[in-house]
């Protein structure tokens, strides 16, 4: 099961985990560090070590900003952001696991909020 999940995440993300040399530049670059219980470099090692369940249950997968700072600065081209997205997809692709529901939206709106924010929230949080 775990091996299966690891393979799925590796396939969806296209990330080669073995490239990582544990330098931590991803985590050093991450602007969402304080909001995530697991940090970019941990996604790499935890997926590699099969600790998928902990990642699936973490809230940090919804606070990754997809700002690509980790992707840009990784000296080994590991692309941790793709891994985080793959973990998130592994959750929300399951029936009934949407992180955001349409009913919640009206309460979140204000007059100035651009459409882009809602569209992107749906893309990131919902199937």
């Amino acid at each position, binding site marked *: 099961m775990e091996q299966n999940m690891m393979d799925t995440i590796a*396939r*969806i*993300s*296209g990330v080669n985990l073995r490239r990582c040399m544990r330098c931590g530049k991803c985590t050093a670059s991450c*602007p*969402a560090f304080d*909001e995530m219980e697991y940090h970019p470099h941990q996604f790499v090692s935890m997926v590699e070590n099969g600790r998928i369940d902990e990642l699936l249950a973490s809230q940090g997968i*919804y*606070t990754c*900003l*997809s*700002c*690509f*700072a980790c*992707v*840009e600065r990784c000296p080994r081209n590991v*692309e941790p*952001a*793709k891994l985080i*997205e*793959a973990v998130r*997809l592994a959750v929300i692709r399951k029936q009934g696991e949407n992180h*955001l529901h349409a009913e919640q939206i009206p309460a*979140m709106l*204000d007059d*100035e*909020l*651009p*459409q*882009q*924010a*809602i*569209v*992107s*929230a749906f*893309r*990131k949080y919902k199937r």
Partner: protein
Amino acid sequence: MKFQYFPGCTLKTKGVRLDACARTAALALGFTLEELPEWQCCGAVYPMARDEIATRLSSVRALMAAREVGEPLVTLCSACHHVIKRVNGDMKHDADIRAKVNNYLKLDPPYAGETEVLHYLEVLRDKIGWENVKAAVKNPLTGVKIGAYYGCLLLRPSREMCFDDPENPSILEDFIRAIGAEPVYYGLRNECCGGYTTIENRQYAHKQAQRIADNAKTAGAECLITACPLCLYNLTQNTDGGLPVRYFTELLAQALGVEEA
């Protein structure tokens, strides 16, 4: 000079000024933006998953439409540019995605990333030239100290975006100089403003945006410019201190003297 143009959803609603000023400024600079007929929302987020096709289709349709006319496709919103540029890269370089998309859309001839995707700023830099922009300025913004806010989506990942140096960009500073104002360097100009999280976690978005605004203010910026409606929202609605944030096209139209159009 004529380009195909993809405005995107926000530019039709909350970001009208970004769009309207861009069009009038284009005319003043001697190029036309021809809006794609029946364009569809790009989705605002680039689908990183390699096994997703559906989320890439609207971008491919826009890219196809531009190929039919044989003109580059110009974007303006940072998010649209990011999504369409990267999907185009996928169609060019990822054989698996290319095959699946072509099969699904039954594209004939198959699409393989032929369309050139340009951000409006790239049009100014590479097709018009800063010297020509400068020459067309009627009301230079002399003495105004402007901080360029790049954010993340235009620059990163630089291997795919090929927009500018991802850590030391200069395109917006060159733009600021071209309209007669003074660019102010501040270190967080390419840091993410946290805009995505504003819906769920406004506090966090506030913290991020405030750091950036404070850094720019400390460096002496009197206002910020951006190409992204969500960045503009976040940097104005989720900060204290009232540092004005404008779309770069607004200042362009103002400098060219076509503001009211």
